[in-house]
């Protein structure tokens, strides 16, 4: 018993199942981060004073992290393109780079967090820090999730390339869509928290 359209696309929708599935999931994620952004707006509008991002956060580090994530998005889509060109070795190099860049992002974030804690700045310190840690923390959890998924596809999951290359290519496309979404969230997070 096979579920149809896992690899081939259905003719009237033009989609394969996982493609539709991941976009639906990403829509729900838009609402999840949206709720946090909405909270940020309400809290900031209702606050007597609200610090500027540059007062508390390290903009150069944040900028580097933005560049890191954008680059990892490029390497992610290149990993998929490599599979489309049937180049497995290139795929592994690009995906490996994506994972490494993601780890760099987390390390930098870790430095930032540690610096805050050293100065006695915690989520409980103020609503600014509460929303800063929560927004970046949830984003960070999503980065970790992406790393785990990508590592699986770099390692044990890559066996599927030999048995079902089309399905495997789809999986990397799907993983890529998730990863690009994580990048987009940061594209909005960075100016909101660091620059405004």
């Amino acid at each position: 018993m096979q579920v149809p359209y896992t690899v081939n696309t259905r003719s009237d929708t033009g989609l394969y199942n996982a493609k539709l599935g991941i976009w639906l999931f990403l829509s729900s994620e838009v609402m999840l981060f949206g709720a946090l952004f909405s909270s940020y707006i309400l809290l900031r509008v209702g606050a007597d004073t609200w610090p500027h991002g540059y007062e508390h956060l390290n903009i150069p580090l944040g900028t580097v992290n933005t560049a890191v994530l954008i680059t990892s998005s490029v390497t992610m889509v290149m990993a998929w393109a490599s599979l489309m060109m049937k180049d497995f070795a290139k795929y592994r190099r690009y995906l490996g780079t994506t994972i490494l860049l993601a780890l760099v992002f987390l390390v930098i974030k870790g430095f930032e967090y540690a610096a805050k804690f050293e100065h006695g700045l915690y989520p409980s310190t103020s609503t600014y820090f509460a929303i800063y840690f929560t927004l970046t923390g949830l984003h960070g959890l999503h980065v970790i999730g992406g790393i785990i998924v990508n590592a699986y596809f770099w390692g044990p999951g890559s066996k599927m390339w030999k048995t079902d290359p089309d399905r495997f290519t789809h999986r990397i496309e799907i993983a890529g869509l998730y990863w690009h979404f994580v990048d987009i969230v940061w594209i909005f997070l960075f100016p909101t928290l660091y620059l405004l």
Partner: protein
Amino acid sequence: MRKYVFSQDHKVIGIQYGITALCFLLFGFTLMIMMRWQLAYPGQPIPLIGQWLGDANAPGGIMLPEFYNQLGAMHGTIMVFLGVVPLAVGAFGNYIVPLQIGAPDMAFPKLNMMSYWSYFLGGVTMLSSFFVPGGAANSGWTSYAPLATIATTGQTFWLFGMIFLITSSLLGSVNFIVTIVQLRAKGLTFMRLPFFVWAQLVTSFLLLLAFPPLEAAGVLQLMDRLAGTSFFLPSGLVIAGQPLHVSGGGSPILWQHLFWFLAHPEVYVLILPAMGIVAEIIANNTRKPLWGYKSMVYSTIFLGFMSFIVWAHHMFMTGMGTVISAFFQTTTMIISIPSVIILTALLLSLYGGSIRFTTPMLFATAFLPMFGIGGLTGLPLGLAPSDIHLHDTYYVIGHFHYVVAPGTLFALFAGIYYWFPKVTGRRMNDVLGKIHFYGSFVFINGIFMPMFIEGLAGVSRRLYDGGQQYAHAQGVLHWNVFMSISAFCLFFFQLFFIINFFWSMKKGKKVTSDNPWDATTLEWDTPTPPPHGNFIKPLEVFRGPYEYSVPGKSKDFLPQTEPEKV
């Protein structure tokens, strides 16, 4: 073990959801039975079970206010999130939708299995909260800040439980939408879908897009409780004479916005699958097509859309400005239109039908006036001026229970009686079914109708003593006894259902055909019960879902998959 416990077959998962949900419904009902005792006879020891509740909850069998609050919060939470939605969507949706669209299973069987177990974990978390110090969550199913923030440990369990449940719903909704869009059989266009499938499709969109803000809010409340943040804690909060040592600057209103952003669409999640079930059963038992199928479909889609922009009608009493108040009143009035269209279409579907009053049909027909009362009583709540008097009174409880209890629950019972033969190959006993129906119908009205009277008199909800301390309540308090006795009787009549359900599984009258109700939709085209993969021959659909009594045909029904005779 792997085959059944961690099955990826949508039918097994549907049954898992169904049994689990029915157990939670019974448990949630039991919590309310205890509350109804306290409301009718405040301060009296609870008979039979009072002694087992423990001194922390009910010393000498007499319910403490703290325990009453736990029962209230958990009754709501369990009925909505562990009972009705898992039954309506998880059980009926999972079992029936792939069958009705001619699919071999859901699009993502593994994800489906994970959805069920996430739900199960959420349920275990919720139930275990009764046993922690301070007991279960006790700040209402709405968990408003700041009360919920400073509440006992049970609230933390509630929050973690909700995260499991929300995850389950999100995974499930993705699965449903992809399944319905991608796996429809050949010839099954969207406008040939049974209304039940449309209802589940729109419901899934509601779950997908409305739940995440509550998940975010739950994380924020957890941070307030565990990490000392002040997302929902305003500055200057004083508790028991002591200022709370937090940063402050937060907003209790923020919690309400995020909570109701989900919780309003959630009520449409509660009703839409029920309307779907009622539509199927009415068409089948009137032997004629549904009146206004297209209107019903468009109304459902419009209703789903509007449901996202009405939420603050739950917040009229929070000091909202005129702009936002007017906006939400307007959208709320607008959303009543599609509701009325759907109800009217279902009512008109009865006209001119050859009605067979089978047990499912009794429940399905009763749904109509009961949902009507529920819907109409919502109107004064949706208008801010009248809501000033009715907000947080028993009127509200009466309103929403009419929609969910003699509304949705009746529809779900109808669905169980209707599809039981397909799942088990046996019919449920008709006599027991009719006793279940008549007894339930009478006594469920006995519980909820007087609530409007109490609410109009100004009796607040969530009062441990039922309003005894208030002078304005004195004239109506005698209804508490009437309602409680009705509740105990209603409980009694559910025994007929429980016995019937289990007895019929083994000893019910075997059906002699795969299509014992002479229905038209695809789920009746399978062997009974359907095997793994569902359909043993390739399918094609030739017509709409309700071709009953087509003029010139020899049978009074034309199944969707039957080819046109050349």
